[in-house]
């Protein structure tokens, strides 16, 4: 297992002494080979906090997170012998808001910043930058521009490119598709799927879009009220009665299927993944 959470709890400290509990007793295992995980849950349920534990940015208040054999606990940073930095190359984390990381004069410099920090030679890093900028749906012309004059969606893509260029084993993305147009969103998700399939890397995506979950994920983790309430297959999740309670909804295609079933008073043998499958199922019963 590449990442293992054992009874992890985390509180954000606050001034008035009442600490805010953002994670409660989380147990989770993630492999670095071939998983496509979506992490969902309502706003404020602790998703971003959870992923920041995956590359040792935050340390649990109780319990432990083991990342590539290195055990992270409350007091881990006291011991300087443990180097956390290499973990951050292995587990690449793209933050929810790109403006927290962009700072160089040009997009190129910003993209090569990460790889150079991890000891990649400048020309190799530039080569990677030229690759990844295309992958995230921008052209090489963007490399010379200032990251601050880009639109929100373009900034998002640049920030993703900056992490991709580090070539992490596990890629964690905090709401990578928010603020993108539908086409750009699909293209990015295809990109992640490609990375996942071709390089057999693990992808973890935080999202609020159930269609993404249903279409791409091989595993879904649901957070609710600082607790991990579901960990399993997307198919099974959408049959769970609790999804109302967890403030989730159904993917469009399952919603349509359910309505059809109710209207026609039939039950299909399985749940379709896209319109074509639904069509086939319809042909079968009519």
């Amino acid at each position, binding site marked *: 297992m590449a990442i293992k959470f054992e009874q992890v709890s985390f509180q954000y400290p606050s001034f008035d002494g009442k600490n805010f509990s953002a994670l409660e007793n989380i147990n989770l295992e993630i492999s670095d080979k071939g998983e496509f995980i979506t992490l969902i849950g309502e706003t404020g349920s602790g998703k971003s906090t959870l992923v920041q534990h995956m590359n040792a940015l935050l340390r649990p208040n109780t319990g432990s997170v083991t990342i590539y054999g290195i055990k992270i606990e409350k007091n881990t*940073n006291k011991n300087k012998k443990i180097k956390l930095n290499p973990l951050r190359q292995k587990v690449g984390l793209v933050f929810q808001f790109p403006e927290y990381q962009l700072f160089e004069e040009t997009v190129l410099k910003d993209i090569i*910043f990460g790889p150079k920090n991890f000891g990649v030679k400048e020309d190799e890093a530039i080569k990677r930058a030229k690759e990844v900028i295309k992958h995230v749906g921008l052209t090489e012309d963007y490399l010379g521009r200032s990251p*601050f004059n880009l639109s929100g969606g373009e900034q998002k893509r640049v920030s993703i490119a900056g992490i991709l260029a580090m070539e992490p084993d596990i890629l964690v993305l905090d709401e990578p598709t928010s603020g993108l147009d539908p086409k750009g969103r699909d293209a990015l998700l295809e990109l992640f799927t490609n990375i996942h399939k071709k390089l057999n890397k693990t992808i973890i995506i935080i999202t609020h879009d159930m269609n993404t979950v249903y279409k791409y994920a091989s595993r879904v983790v649901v957070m609710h009220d600082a607790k991990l309430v579901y960990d399993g297959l997307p198919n099974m999740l959408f049959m769970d009665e609790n999804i109302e309670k967890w403030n989730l909804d159904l993917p469009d295609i399952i919603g349509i299927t359910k309505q059809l079933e109710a209207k026609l008073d039939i039950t299909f043998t399985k749940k379709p993944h896209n319109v074509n499958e639904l069509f086939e199922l319809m042909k079968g019963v009519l």
Partner: protein
Amino acid sequence: MKNIIVGQYIPGKSFLYKMDPRSKILALFILMVSAFVFKDITHIIYMLLGVLVILKIGGIPIMRIARGLRPIMILLLFTFTFQVLFIKTGPVILDTVLTLTTINIGIMILAIVVWYYTRRYIKSKFFYMVLVIVGILTMLSLFTPGTVISSSNLTIYEDGLLGASFIMVRLIIIVTLSTILTLTTKPTDLNLGLERILKPLNLVKINSEEIALIISIALRYIPTLLDEANKIMLAQASRGVDFTEGKFKDKVMQIISLLVPMFIISFKRSDDLANAMEARSFVPGNKRTRIHILSWQSRDTLVIVFCLLVLTATVVVRVYL
């Protein structure tokens, strides 16, 4: 980062919270003036005790204030050292020669190295550092075998020591008093109070409302900006910036990677704030009505009278004693 509590309101119930912000600001001002009127170390220590009593009655834990003082500890230490070294009047307390020899320079370096590597295991780092410095100085003056490399005189005079302590206590009093004000007053109340108190300045064409607004926005944004800085550090750390170590060149890069987003975000925030204010039809200088009406009560009068008595007493002490 979380130690900086200036500008941070903490809810509570004591009389400090029930006071009118105007009276609190006035009282703070009067007491600060008193702190500056004192010239004698014993008197200002009485005042420090008085401030501690206020904290006690006001139900503010002293530890909170102590934590808030920590960031200015270095400043205090600097002032203290300079005062001690440069005031050269009054009786001599300590007169010694610091001698650097081939043997004790080795011990000194050893002590510094040991301190450097053990300091992270010690809880009160500050006292550990002071202890090591005092230890080294003592050794330099007393233990001097071997060949002398260089030596210099260290003379401490009574006035220097007293003066230094005096300034330290005065600074602590001032910071504590202002912290009490911001800890117990909601930013909105603080703003309103300031505005009312500065009102007379309108006569000389200085807009008190604007000044109050500027101050309250600045106070309001200190914690927010600290939070932002924290988030930026996390985002950069995930790209391999190790803020805890690095050579000087790396350090410069680390600071740039923190400051640039910080500036961009602050500008964006202030832009957003300006737009939000405009969208709510905020026009500087317009007449506005208030949700909260300040009410001056007898306890406020009492406090001000008391503070004025303190001030009078200090003046009397200063003039006649």
